[in-house]
């Protein structure tokens, strides 16, 4: 009974940040430039969910629990959900769907190029996230979904390139990503962590 409730509860919890964001937007509590806040917040939540998704495999290895893997797909889809909101704020509130302007931006500005590349790579992952596609693709599904690491690197680069001078925040995300990549591709590290905490 309990375990049946956990997933929907976490689902609802994942919706909270955006609900709060749009509530503040509606109540005019986002300050002088609410549109900028929408883009930035949705971007940050995309990155947070991305790192959360990446943390599930190591977490499973660390704890042995099956839960992380059961939640992984849901978190992954929340990445896609947030990046769609983020992209929409860019296309609409920044450029009002002026496609000439948008294409120029994508070609000329490396931070937009990286962001767009990350979004494009997320598309096939979202489309093949169903159980059916997982079965159909078999082994290839796993290699395809390794793209998520590339996406995360692109996402962090996107953040590093867009800040004006204060690199503190993007560096924190870059550091977390580095740790996650290390434990993923050097699993021996994880064993050490397990021993150390036992």
């Amino acid at each position, binding site marked *: 009974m309990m375990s049946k409730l956990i997933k929907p509860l976490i689902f609802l919890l994942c919706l909270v940040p955006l609900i709060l964001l749009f509530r503040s937007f509606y109540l*005019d509590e986002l*300050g*002088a*430039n609410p*549109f*900028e806040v929408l883009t930035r917040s949705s971007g940050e939540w995309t990155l947070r969910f991305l790192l959360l998704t990446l943390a599930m495999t190591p977490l499973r290895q660390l704890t042995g629990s099956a839960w992380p893997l059961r939640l992984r797909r849901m978190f992954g889809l929340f990445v896609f959900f947030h990046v769609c909101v983020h992209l929409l704020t860019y296309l609409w509130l920044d450029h*009002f769907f002026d496609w000439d*302007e948008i294409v*120029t*931006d994508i070609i*000329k*500005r490396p*931070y937009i190029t990286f962001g767009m590349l990350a979004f494009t790579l997320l598309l096939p992952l979202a489309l093949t996230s169903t159980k059916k596609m997982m079965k159909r693709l078999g082994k290839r599904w796993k290699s395809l979904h390794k793209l998520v690491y590339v996406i995360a690197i692109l996402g962090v680069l996107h953040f590093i*390139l*867009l800040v*004006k*001078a*204060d690199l*503190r925040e993007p560096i924190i995300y870059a550091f977390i990503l580095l740790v996650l990549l290390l434990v993923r591709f050097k699993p021996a590290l994880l064993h050490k962590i397990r021993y150390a905490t036992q």
Partner: protein
Amino acid sequence: MLIKKPQDISSSEITEQAIYLDRRKFMTSSIGLTAAATLLSPHTSVAGYGGKTLKFTEDKIFDRKEELTSFDKISNYNNYYEFGTDKYSPAKNAQALTTDPWSVQIGGEVEKPGTLHLEDILKQNPLEERIYRLRCVERWSMVIPWIGFPLANLIKQAKPTSKAKYVQFETLERPSEMMGQKRNVLPWPYIEGLRMDEAMNPLTIIAVGLYGEVLPKQNGAPLRLVVPWKYGFKSIKSIVKITFAEKEPVSSWTKVAPNEYGFYSNVNPEVDHPRWSQRKERRIGDFLKRKTLSFNGYAEQVASLYTGMDLKKYF
């Protein structure tokens, strides 16, 4: 041009501006009367944004077709890295700054170097109102009713020598009160500069107030530069030093990113920032963006300063 939908304007915003405009009308009609003097003495703040009220003459130069940005927005959305790198922190963190006493050091290529105390500066330079557009390099803009005086007045008093080709400005460096200076996001103190003719242009002012009251600390109290045809970061805040020089000063932002922020930094829709186009801007409070104007709409007054210059090269 899009005017925001009525429901986007909160009622407090409307009253704020209405009171301000009303009060201004009153003041101009009563200037010179003793009644005005008592009314305008410090501590009897009329509009009530919380600051001391200032005596000034009304802006006669610029039309008021454009809606003023509310005091609330002007004083809560600030780029002032000395008090944090996001635009919401300065309103809070800047309150730690001591702005009284304050003095400005004048030096370099001048006949009359020395230290000017703020009270003396205020005594010697009659204040006037200037309603200017402010265009930030980040693609947002405001319309601000500054109170100040032409920088030219101050410069004439200092008597620059023939060697003075540029003016360099310096912000206070006081990490104990300016928490942002504890980290090296920018080289401190903040430095900005103008060519002599830009500094002498009648549009260039030293502002000491806005909306009829002394500057809020987050807006650069007690005195700051305002150069309305250049991107906002050129309008250096909380000035403690003005130096006249033969060589072009290197601005703080130019030091950290020379390809992004040039010495001139004139508002120019034709010259992109490496990370975005400068063709459009969002006026704070608006939903739709508007076209950015060459020299921020002040081409008539200042374009002649740059005749013959390649503005793509001298960006």
